[in-house]
C-alpha cells in the first residue's frame, strides 16, 4: 500500500487539474447579452461626414466586429471575415482606439469585409459594449438586441458551431 501512495496522490492531483482546465478564465460572458445594443453615433472610417449609428440597422441581423489595425489576432480572422462578407453576411466594424489613424489605409490595402467601420478613437463605445480586448464580435438581432458575444478571432469551428446556428434562427 505504502509504495502506491505517491501514485494515488498524483492521480488525485491530476484529476483536479483536469477539472481546473475546463474553467476558462477568458470566457467573460457579457452582461449585455439580451439587452439592447448601446446607442452611439460615430464617424465612419474613410468617408468624411458620414456617421454610423446602430439604429440604422433595425430590421436586420448583423455582426458588430471590434478590431484595430494594431491587433494581430484581427489579421487572423481577416480572411474569414472577407469570405463571410462575400457570402452576404452584413459585418459592421468598430475601429477601436486607433491612435495612428491607420485603419483606412489598411482596409484599402487588404480589402474591407465591412459594410462600414465606425471610428471609436477614444475607446468610449468599446467601454459601453464591455470590450475587454480585440477582436470581439457581437451578433445583434432585428430588434437591436445583442444576442451573442464572441471573444477572440472567429475560426471555422466558432463559425460553424456558434454563429451559424444562431444566425439561422434569428433570420427565420
Amino acid at each position, binding site marked *: 500500500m505504502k*509504495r*502506491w501512495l*505517491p*501514485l494515488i496522490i*498524483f*492521480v488525485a*492531483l*491530476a484529476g*483536479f*487539474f*483536469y*477539472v*481546473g*482546465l*475546463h*474553467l*476558462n*478564465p*477568458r470566457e467573460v460572458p457579457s452582461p449585455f447579452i439580451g439587452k439592447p445594443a448601446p446607442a452611439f453615433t460615430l464617424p465612419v472610417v474613410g468617408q468624411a461626414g458620414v456617421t454610423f449609428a446602430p439604429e440604422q440597422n433595425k430590421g436586420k441581423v448583423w455582426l458588430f466586429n471590434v478590431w484595430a489595425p*494594431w*491587433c*494581430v*489576432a484581427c*489579421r*487572423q480572422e*481577416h*480572411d474569414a471575415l472577407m469570405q463571410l462578407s462575400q457570402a452576404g453576411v452584413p459585418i459592421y466594424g468598430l475601429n477601436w*482606439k486607433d*491612435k495612428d489613424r*491607420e485603419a483606412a489605409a*489598411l482596409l484599402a*490595402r*487588404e480589402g474591407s469585409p465591412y459594410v462600414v467601420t465606425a471610428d471609436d478613437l477614444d475607446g468610449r463605445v468599446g467601454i459601453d459594449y464591455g470590450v475587454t480586448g480585440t477582436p470581439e464580435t457581437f451578433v445583434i438581432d432585428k430588434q437591436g438586441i445583442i444576442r451573442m458575444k464572441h471573444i477572440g478571432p472567429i475560426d471555422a469551428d466558432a463559425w460553424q458551431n456558434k454563429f451559424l446556428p444562431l444566425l439561422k434562427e434569428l433570420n427565420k
Partner: protein
Amino acid sequence: MIPELGQLALILALLLALAQGILPILGAHRGNATLMAVARPAAQGQFVFVAIAFGCLAYAFLTNDFSVENVARNSFSQLPKIYRFTATWGSHEGSILLWTLVLAFWTMAVTVFSHHLPDDMSARVIGVMGLVSSGFLAFILLTSDPFTRLNPIPADGNDMNPLLQDPGMVFHPPMLYMGYVGFSVAFAFAIAALLSGRFDAAWARWSRPWTTVAWVFLTIGITAGSWWAYNELGWGGWWFWDPTENASFIPWLAGTALIHSLAVTEKRGAFKGWTVLLAIIAFSMSLLGTFLVRSGVLSSVHAFATDPTRGIFILGFLGVVIGGSLVLYAIRVPKMESGGSFTWFSRESLLLANNVVLVAALGSVLLGTLYPLFMDAMGMGKISVGPPYFNSVFVPLIAPAMFLAGVGPLARWKQASLPEMAKRLRIAMAVSVASALLLPLTVGGFNWMASVGIGLAMWIVFTVLIGFAERLKHEQGSKLAALMRLPRGFWGMQLGHFGLAWVVAGIALVSAYETERNVKMNVGDTVHLSGYAFTFMGVEMRDGPNYRAARGTLEVSTGGKPAFVLHPEKRIYNASGMPMTEAAINYGFTRDVYAALGEELGPNEWTVRVFFKPFVGWLWLAGAMLTLGGILAAFDRRYLIALRKTGADTSPAKGAAVQGAKA
C-alpha cells in the same frame, strides 16, 4: 522559407527523438547492442535539428519577419536587437521550443560524458530523455507551432510585454530552464535504475554531479528572477510568492532534498527508494512548473499563455510521464534492499530530518499554490492565498533545516554521539545566541524576526568554520596548503551552507528594517527617510527606442552632503500603449536606496515612492555563493576521475563498492 525550414527541422527532430526513445530501451531490455548503439547518434542528431529550428525562429525575430504570427505577436520593429533575440522565448511557443532545445542540450551532454557507464545504463538514460523530448516536440508540432504564418502580413508587430524588456530577462528563462530540464537527467537515471532493477551506489554517484549542476542553474535562475522582480516591477519587492515564482521554487526545494539524499545513497547505500522517488518528484515538479506557468491554469503577472487544449496535452503528458514513473516505482521498490544501517543520531538521520523538513516545506508551498485552483475546480468559490500564508508557514517550517545545516556536516556517519556533539558545538551555540540578542540592536533596534534570522545565520557560519578547523587540526605543515587540498566536494558543501546563512541574514535584515514612504512632491520638495533626504527636481519627457518616458530627477543627500541622483521613470510603450514604472536604485553592500514615480497629479506634481532597503543586495550575492558551492561540489575530483576511466569501471559489481566516508 526559413520558417518552413525550422518546421521541417522540428519534424525530423521528433522522428529522431522517437528512435532515441524507443530503440535503445528495447535494446537494453533484450541485450541487443546494435539497438543500444542508436542512442548516441540519434540524440546528437536530434540536438542538431532542434538547434536549427531554434535558430530559424531566432532569425525570424532578428530580421523582423512579421509574416510569422509568433514574431508579429511578440516583437516590434523598434525593439532593441537584444530584446528581439530574447523575444524568441518570450512567447509560449518560443519558450517551449527553448525548453526542448535545453533538453536536447542536456541529452547531448549525457551522450558525451557517459562513456564510463555500462552500455545498457547509458542506453536507458538516453532513451528515457528521448521519450521526454518526443513528448515536448509533439506538443510543439500539434498545439504550439511557433512558425505559423499570417496572411495578410501585418506592417509591424505587437511588441514584447514591456515587463520582459529587462536585462534580467535575458538570462532568467534560459537559466531557469537549464535547471528545470537538468533534473531530467537525474530522473532518467532513476527510471533507468528502475527499469534495470539495479540500485547500487554507483548509480547515485553517476547521477549526483548532474543533479548538482541542474540545481546550480536553477539557483541562478531563481536569483536572476528575484533580481528582475526587484528591478523591474517597481514595488521594491524581491519575492512575491507568486505562482510563477513558486513554480520554480518548488523544484528547487525538491532538488535540494535530492542532492542531500543522493549523498547518503552514494556514501552509505541507504535511502535508495526515497532517493529514486525524490528524483521523480524533482522532475515532476519541473514539469508541473511548466504546466502551471504555460497553460494558464493559474494566471499571474507573467503567465500569459491561455489555451486549454495545450493544458490538456500537457496534463496527458504529465499523466504518462509521472504516472508511469510512479507505477514503475511501486512495482520495483520492493526489490531494493536498504543498505547501511544507522542509529537515530548520525549523519544519515540528520540528513533524513533535513529531507523531511524540505519536503514538508515543499508541501506547504505546493498547497498554497494549488489550493485556490482546487477550490475553483470544486466550485467552492474564488480564493487567494497571499504572502502572509507563505511567510507564516514556510518560514517556521524551514527554520529547523537551518539548524540541521549546522549540525549535519559535523556528525559522523552511522553513529554519532550527542554529548560529544554538544561539546563541540557549545561555543558556536553561545556565539549565535549572543549575536541573535545583540546584533539587531546595532542595526535598528530589537526585532524578533531579525534576531532569529541572525542567530541561525551565525550558527551556520560558525559550524562551517568548525568544520574547516576540525579538518585541519591534524594536518602537518602549512595550514593554507592543507586548506587548498581539501576535496572540492567539501568546499562546495561549506560554501553552499555559508551562502544559505547569507541569504537568511539578508532576508531577516531587509524584512525587519526596510522603510518606505509615499508622498506627493512638487519641484523643490524634500522627503526624509532613514537618514536620506530626497529632493524632487522635476520631470522631463524623453524618448527611448520603443517608448516615451517621463523621467524624474531626485537629488539624494545624506548627512547634509549630496550623495547621488536617482532617475525613476514612467514609461509608455509605443506599440502596446502599456504604461510601466521603471524604478531607480542606488545599490550598496549594506543598503539600497530605491525610488519610483507614482502618478502625475498636476504639472510637475507627482506621487513618489521611496524605499530604504538595508542589506537587500546580500540576497543576490548569497545566490552567487550558493552557485559557486554547487559548481565546486559538482566538479569534485572523484567524478572527474570516473569520467577519465572510460570503460575501465563499467562492471556493476565494481561500481557497487561503497566508498569510504572520507571520500
